[in-house]
């Protein structure tokens, strides 16, 4: 009989017995649970309303299952953009303080960036959060996925997921060196283009192969992040030395060290694991890629596109970490943003923001004429910091270009890498980044 996938191994560890893809498990305990300020407030209110009577009848105070496994991370529209948003943040802050749960501050970062940077989510864990891009944590070798409000409230009470179907896995084997000017974002947009928006429905997208092995963590986060756009249940990369040194550094920043217990959590797929499907990708054939309006799966080589662009957004949980800002700054250094274009740069966390300041990257962006905002989800959420109007055309490093996603349903959104975004900001139209890369730059 075949071996197990990393997803099967993580579920097996959590339930204490061998779990196979396709089986339904009555209750699966999760290791980590986090909330943003969009779903946190109604989840907390519903938890208090729906479960109060059970605690009272048992003679106990309302108490979450384990405060150390939970965190609140206000990130979508912060600093608060409306009175109701402020009320929601106050509500979760009061609850977190009362329950002894970690409460991050506005501007600390986008939840999926904080969760990995703070070593809140670790390899081999099951992590859930009230956001579909929770799959980003798969880059750590964690099994991570989004949940709704009601599941969030249930998890606050018991820390368990109910009636959980162990997902099957699609293996994406990626080989080949990236061409100059090609990055993780181009690879994943290309994959979305071949799979379609429903192409990985209910499956785990597991990425492996020499191209993935040679990717830094920032690139792996991008690939896992975007995988939900082909409706994958989640995405995952088998942990390796790159993963472990990232996690060790994250732990060290918090004064912690990698322990044998943490190392024991690390899981990897067996060579003879059973996959529902295997997809071979030759990364060497991929050009810089953009996804055209109105679908993330509408991928085209950038060389075939030159539409005018009025807004460029470099940010979001997809593409606003160190490696992303570094490449954008290399292209923008000593150049100016087109007079017809507005460039918005939002680092993915306070740590990335402060690092970019120390490295002089923020000065490069500011000198080029960018608007630099404190860390949050920004215009990707379509509520503040760069709402698109009718007829506006935006090139964004984020993950969704649905009609209306960033404002008006009569706007047009293109998705691309930070390199494509920087080149586009300079030219005021969708542009190929290769001509701006310094000589010798990969």
């Amino acid at each position: 009989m075949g071996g197990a996938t990393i997803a099967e191994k993580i579920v097996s560890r959590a339930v204490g017995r061998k779990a196979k893809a396709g089986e339904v498990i009555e209750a699966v305990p999760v290791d980590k649970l986090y909330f943003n300020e969009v779903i946190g407030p109604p989840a907390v209110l519903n938890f208090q309303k729906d479960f109060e009577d059970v605690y009272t009848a048992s003679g106990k105070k309302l108490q979450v299952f384990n405060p150390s496994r939970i965190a609140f991370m206000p990130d979508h529209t912060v600093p608060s953009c409306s009175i109701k948003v402020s009320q929601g943040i106050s509500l979760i802050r009061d609850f977190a303080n009362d329950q002894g749960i970690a409460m991050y501050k506005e501007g600390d970062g986008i939840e999926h960036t904080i969760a990995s940077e703070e070593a809140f989510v670790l390899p081999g864990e099951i992590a859930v959060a009230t956001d579909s891009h929770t799959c980003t944590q798969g880059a750590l070798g964690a099994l991570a996925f989004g949940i709704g409000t009601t599941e969030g409230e249930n998890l606050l009470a018991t820390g368990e997921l109910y009636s959980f179907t162990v997902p099957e896995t699609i293996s994406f084997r990626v080989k080949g060196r990236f061409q100059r000017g090609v990055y993780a974002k181009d690879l994943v947009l290309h994959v979305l283009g071949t799979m379609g928006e429903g192409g990985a429905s209910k499956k785990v997208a597991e990425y492996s192969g020499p191209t993935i092995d040679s990717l830094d963590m920032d690139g792996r986060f991008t690939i896992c992040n975007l995988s939900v756009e082909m409706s994958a249940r989640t995405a995952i990369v088998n942990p390796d030395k790159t993963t472990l040194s990232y996690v060790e550094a994250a732990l060290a920043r918090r004064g912690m060290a990698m322990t044998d217990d943490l190392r024991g959590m690390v899981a990897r797929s067996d060579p003879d694991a059973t996959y529902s499907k295997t997809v071979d990708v030759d990364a060497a054939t991929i050009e810089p890629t953009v996804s055209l309006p109105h679908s993330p799966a509408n991928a085209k080589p950038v060389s075939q596109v030159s539409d005018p662009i009025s807004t460029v957004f470099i940010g979001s949980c997809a593409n606003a970490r160190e490696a992303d800002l570094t490449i954008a700054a290399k292209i923008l250094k000593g150049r100016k943003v087109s007079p017809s274009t507005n460039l918005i740069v939002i680092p993915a966390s306070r740590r990335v923001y402060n690092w970019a300041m120390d490295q002089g990257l923020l000065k490069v962006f500011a000198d080029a004429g960018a608007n630099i905002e404190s860390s949050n989800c920004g215009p990707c959420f379509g509520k503040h910091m760069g709402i698109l109007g009718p007829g506006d055309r935006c090139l964004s490093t984020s993950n969704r270009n649905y009609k209306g996603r960033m404002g008006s349903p009569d706007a047009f959104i293109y998705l691309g890498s930070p390199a494509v975004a920087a080149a586009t900001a300079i030219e005021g139209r969708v542009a190929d980044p290769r001509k701006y890369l310094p000589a010798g730059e990969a």
Partner: protein
Amino acid sequence: MQVRGKVAKRFDDDINTDYIIPAYLLQESWDKQFFADHAFEAYDPAFAPTCRANKESIVVARNNFGCGSSREQAVYAIKYNNVVAVVAQSFPDIFFRNCLNNGLLPIQVADTSTIGLGDELVIDLDTRKLKDLTTGQEHDIVATDASIETMKRGGFLGYVKERLRQRLNAQPPRAP
């Protein structure tokens, strides 16, 4: 257990939850009905009045209905417009589970192309058949035993409360 309704809306593939309820509204209310009032506001403004015209409406779609963002408000937006079920050829996982948790039936059948607007449908969760009374066609409902059970219970809440009760009663009371 049977659920009946009239097909009020038909959709194509890949209807995402941003289309169902736009993000800028999500933080502006904690009242489920608010989201129903704004359902498909930018994508199909006729959705709410059309669905509300029936006492029990059913929405029919092709593949991958409810993809994208995990926002559960998308389920409230549909359900609280008198919609009892969504019939589609496939659902992504988060939306499917959000439906189960809110008693909106996510009914998967192999082919929805013959189900027309205005058709009267009967969903039988015991026989796992969807009967189109207008055309006389019968469709097999694709579902696990567990999800059929959850659909009949209207969600997990009662079950979760029982799990919590057992757990709390197994622990000594906390010091005041």
